[in-house]
C-alpha cells in the first residue's frame, strides 16, 4: 500500500470556513462538503470516475459549523450541521428522492460547543455526538426507525474537542476526543458489552492542534489522524490487533485545518485537508503492485552498496507504478557458495549449488523474491535469474552494475532481454545502459503486473 501525492480540489468561489468534510456512500462515490465563506453548504462530487465542479446548495441554510457527514446505505447520505439557533440540523439524500428538507434535532440541554459528529454502524442506526456546553459527551440516537432524546454520557469525561466517530463493524462504534491533557482518548461500544472505559492514545511528539479524526477502511484497521502542532499530518494506526506508534507524514504538506477522512473500499483510505492556499487538498492510500524483495548477502558488491542497488531498482520499477518493498535482510555465512555454479544460467535449469543456495529462504513467503548477493557466478557473469521451482530469486555478483539487481528480478518476473540500450532489460550489459535510469515499457509493465510475484499490498 502506498500514498499517492497530494492533489488540489480547489475551493468554492465563496471560499470556505474551517476544513473540509467528506463521505463515500459507496466505493464509487465521494463527496466533499464545506461551510462556504457565505455560510452556505458547498459540495464537490466524485462519481463516474471523475471529480466535478464545486456547487452551492441554494436551500437557504445558514451554517454555524462545519458539516458532519454520514451514510446509511449505498444510496444514502446525510449532512448534519449546527444551525444559527444552536441546534443540530440535518438533511438527507437518498438517490431517486433527491434531497430532503432540513430537519432540526434540537440540542442537548447544556447546549453544544462546535459542530456535531455522526456515525452509522449499520444501515438502521445513526448516532449524533456532540461536545456539550458542559464539555461532556452528549448523544442522540436513531434506531428502531425513529430519533430518541439527547442523553449525556455521565462517565466523568471532560472533552477538549469535538468528538470524532467511527465504526469497525455492524455492532461497534467508537468515539475519539481530545482530552484536557492534550492526548487523544477513545471509548468503544460493542453491543452486548456496552461502553468500554476511556483509553488514552497519547499524542504526536510536539502535540496537536484541534481534535482527532479517524477512519476504518475495514473491520481490522483504524487510523487516527491529527494536525500536529508542526502543521504536519500525524497518524496512529491500529492493525494486527494492536495500536502502533504515532508517525509523521514527512511529505512536506502544511495543514491549515484538521484532516477529514474517508474510505472507498476495504483497501483504500484518503485524507482531505485545507491547505495554506485555502484550497481543499487530498491524498489517498491504496493497493499498489509490489515486489517484496528479501536480501541475503554472502558477499557485498564492490561498486555499489546493496542499498544503492535497491534504490536503483526502486527508481525504475516505480516509474511504471510498481513498488519494491524490502521484506528482510540477512547475512549468510556460506563461503563455499559465494562463488556459485550457475552453469548456463537458463530459466528452469539449476545446478546443485543453486539448489543449495536457494534453499536458504529462511521463512520468506512463497510469492516473495530473494536476491542472493554472491562474490561471483561460475561461469562469470553479473547475475543470474535461474532459480529452483517454487524458490523465486536470483543471484547478483559483486561486480554487478547498479541496475543488475532490477534486471535480474525483471527476468524472475518474466521479462526477456531486449536490444535498446536505454532499457533495463537490455541484453548487452547493464553497465552499458545509456540514459540512466533505464526504461521499462508498457508491455513489460503488464508482464510484471501479471506475475504472481507482484502482489497488491
Amino acid at each position: 500500500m502506498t500514498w499517492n501525492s497530494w492533489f488540489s480540489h480547489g475551493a468554492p468561489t465563496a471560499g470556505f470556513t474551517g476544513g473540509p468534510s467528506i463521505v463515500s456512500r459507496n466505493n464509487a462515490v465521494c463527496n466533499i462538503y464545506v461551510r462556504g465563506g457565505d455560510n452556505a453548504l458547498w459540495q464537490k462530487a466524485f462519481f463516474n470516475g471523475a471529480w466535478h465542479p464545486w456547487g452551492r446548495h441554494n436551500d437557504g441554510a445558514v451554517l454555524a459549523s462545519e458539516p458532519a457527514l454520514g451514510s446509511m446505505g449505498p444510496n444514502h447520505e446525510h449532512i448534519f450541521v449546527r444551525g444559527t439557533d444552536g441546534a443540530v440540523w440535518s438533511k438527507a439524500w437518498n438517490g431517486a428522492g433527491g434531497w430532503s428538507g432540513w430537519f432540526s434535532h434540537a440540542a442537548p440541554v447544556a447546549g453544544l460547543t462546535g459542530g456535531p459528529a455522526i456515525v452509522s454502524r449499520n444501515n438502521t442506526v445513526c448516532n449524533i455526538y456532540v461536545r456539550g456546553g458542559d464539555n461532556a459527551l452528549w448523544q442522540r440516537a436513531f434506531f428502531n426507525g425513529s430519533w430518541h432524546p439527547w442523553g449525556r454520557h455521565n462517565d466523568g469525561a471532560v472533552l477538549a474537542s469535538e468528538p470524532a466517530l467511527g465504526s469497525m463493524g455492524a455492532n461497534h462504534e467508537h468515539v475519539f476526543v481530545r482530552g484536557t491533557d492534550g492526548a487523544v482518548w477513545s471509548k468503544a461500544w460493542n453491543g452486548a458489552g456496552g461502553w468500554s472505559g476511556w483509553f488514552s492514545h497519547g499524542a504526536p511528539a510536539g502535540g496537536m492542534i484541534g481534535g482527532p479524526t479517524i477512519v476504518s477502511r475495514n473491520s481490522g484497521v483504524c487510523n487516527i489522524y491529527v494536525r500536529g502542532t508542526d502543521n504536519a499530518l500525524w497518524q496512529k494506526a491500529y492493525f494486527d490487533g494492536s495500536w502502533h506508534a504515532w508517525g509523521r507524514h514527512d511529505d512536506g504538506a502544511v495543514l491549515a485545518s484538521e484532516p477529514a477522512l474517508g474510505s472507498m473500499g476495504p483497501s483504500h483510505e484518503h485524507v482531505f485537508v485545507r491547505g495554506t492556499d485555502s484550497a481543499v487538498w487530498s491524498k489517498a492510500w491504496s493497493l499498489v503492485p509490489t515486489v517484496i524483495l528479501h536480501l541475503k548477502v554472502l558477499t557485498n558488491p564492490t561498486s555499489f552498496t546493496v542499498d544503492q542497488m535497491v534504490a536503483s531498482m526502486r527508481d525504475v520499477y516505480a516509474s511504471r507504478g510498481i513498488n519494491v518493498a524490502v521484506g528482510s535482510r540477512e547475512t549468510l555465512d556460506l563461503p563455499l557458495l559465494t562463488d556459485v555454479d550457475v552453469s548456463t544460467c537458463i530459466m528452469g535449469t539449476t545446478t546443485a549449488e543453486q539448489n543449495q543456495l536457494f534453499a536458504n529462504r529462511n521463512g520468506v513467503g512463497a510469492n516473495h523474491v530473494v536476491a542472493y548477493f554472491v562474490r561471483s557466478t561460475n561461469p562469470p557473469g553479473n547475475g543470474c535469474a535461474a532459480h529452483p521451482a517454487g524458490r523465486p530469486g536470483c543471484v547478483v555478483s559483486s561486480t554487478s552494475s547498479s541496475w543488475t539487481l532490477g534486471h535480474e528480478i525483471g527476468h524472475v518476473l518474466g521479462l526477456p532481454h531486449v536490444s535498446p540500450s536505454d532499457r533495463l532489460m537490455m541484453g548487452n550489459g547493464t553497465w552499458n545502459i545509456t540514459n540512466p535510469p533505464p526504461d521499462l515499457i508498457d508491455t513489460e509493465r503488464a508482464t510484471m503486473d501479471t506475475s504472481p510475484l507482484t502482489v497488491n499490498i
Partner: protein
Amino acid sequence: MPVTMRDVRAVLDPDEVDYSAGARLGPEAFDYLLALVRDTDPGLAAKAAYLAGVIRGERSEEVVAAAAASEDALVRVAAASAAALLAPASASRVLNDLVVDQDSGVQKLALRSVPADPSPELRSRVREVSAGAAEPGLRAMADNVLRGLH
C-alpha cells in the same frame, strides 16, 4: 572479418554471458582477453579468463595462467574454473597453486577442475588439502577428487 576488442566486449559485457557464442571468436580473441585479464576491472577479467578456456586454443593456458596470478580472488576463481577446460597438463600447471590458494572459493573451483590424470605435484597438493584444509567441505571435495583420480 578480424576480431576486435569491440567484438570481445560485445560477448563479455552482458550481465549473463553466452560463452558458447563467445567461443566462436576463436584464437584471434586471445590478445584482447589477455589485456582484459591484466586490466583492473575484475569483473571483466574474470569473464575474459573463462572465455579463454572456452575457446580451447593454444594460448588458452597463457590467459588462464595470467588470471591465476591475479591478486583478486574473484579473478583467480574464474581461472580455477576455466582450468577445467584446458588440456590436463595445462590444467595441472594452472591449478598447482590454486588448489592450495588462501581463498576457499578459489580452492573449491580448483579442486573441481583437477583433471583425472593430474601431474604428480598437483596430486600431492590435493592430498594436502584432503589432509589439512580448514574448511571441512574442501577436505570432502579433495577426498572425492582423490577417489576419482587414475
